[in-house]
């Protein structure tokens, strides 16, 4: 199964741990996972757990505009994309979950 996740809240929100846990569990069961971070969700790219998720094969993209507005620097392995990428994820996956 392909799972898409949209995360729009900053790391101190409980959504972050939920997204990390769901993504880990899904990957362990062999599912494809794509995450799109926007609004304050872009702050999550500095959490080491998100770097670990990319190492486990999770595709992570952020809204480049929201990152630029918040002075967030680039992180290797994470796509600095656009709403087009969010739309592609939503169109491509079997289940799409939004955390905001």
């Amino acid at each position, binding site marked *: 199964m392909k799972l898409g996740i949209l995360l729009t809240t900053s790391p101190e929100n409980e959504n972050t741990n939920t997204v990390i846990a769901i993504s880990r569990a899904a990957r362990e069961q062999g599912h494809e996972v794509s995450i799109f971070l926007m609004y304050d969700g872009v702050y999550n790219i500095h959490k080491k757990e998100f770097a670990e998720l990319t190492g486990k094969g999770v595709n992570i993209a952020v809204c480049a505009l929201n990152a*630029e507005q918040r002075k967030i620097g680039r992180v290797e392995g994470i796509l600095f994309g*656009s709403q087009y990428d969010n739309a592609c994820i939503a169109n491509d996956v079997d289940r799409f979950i939004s955390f905001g």
Partner: protein
Amino acid sequence: MQDLVRKMAIELDLKGEVCPYTFVKTKLKLEELDSGEELAVTFDHAPAVENVPRSLKNEGHKILGIEQQGDHLWRVRIRKA
């Protein structure tokens, strides 16, 4: 010849626009063109210069060139699929 091709391109000025309008307005303009026609879009938003061409390529269009014309000014030439 290159100058002639440039003159034939349809111009779209998207200075002052940011994502997602940069992609949306480019896509809407391309819908007015026939296959094979060229569109030249001017951006002043750096993330758009990277993301709009990548998204358009994913849609099947051809990126003919990206030319930086100033500190924050780019012209992207697109051939409609």
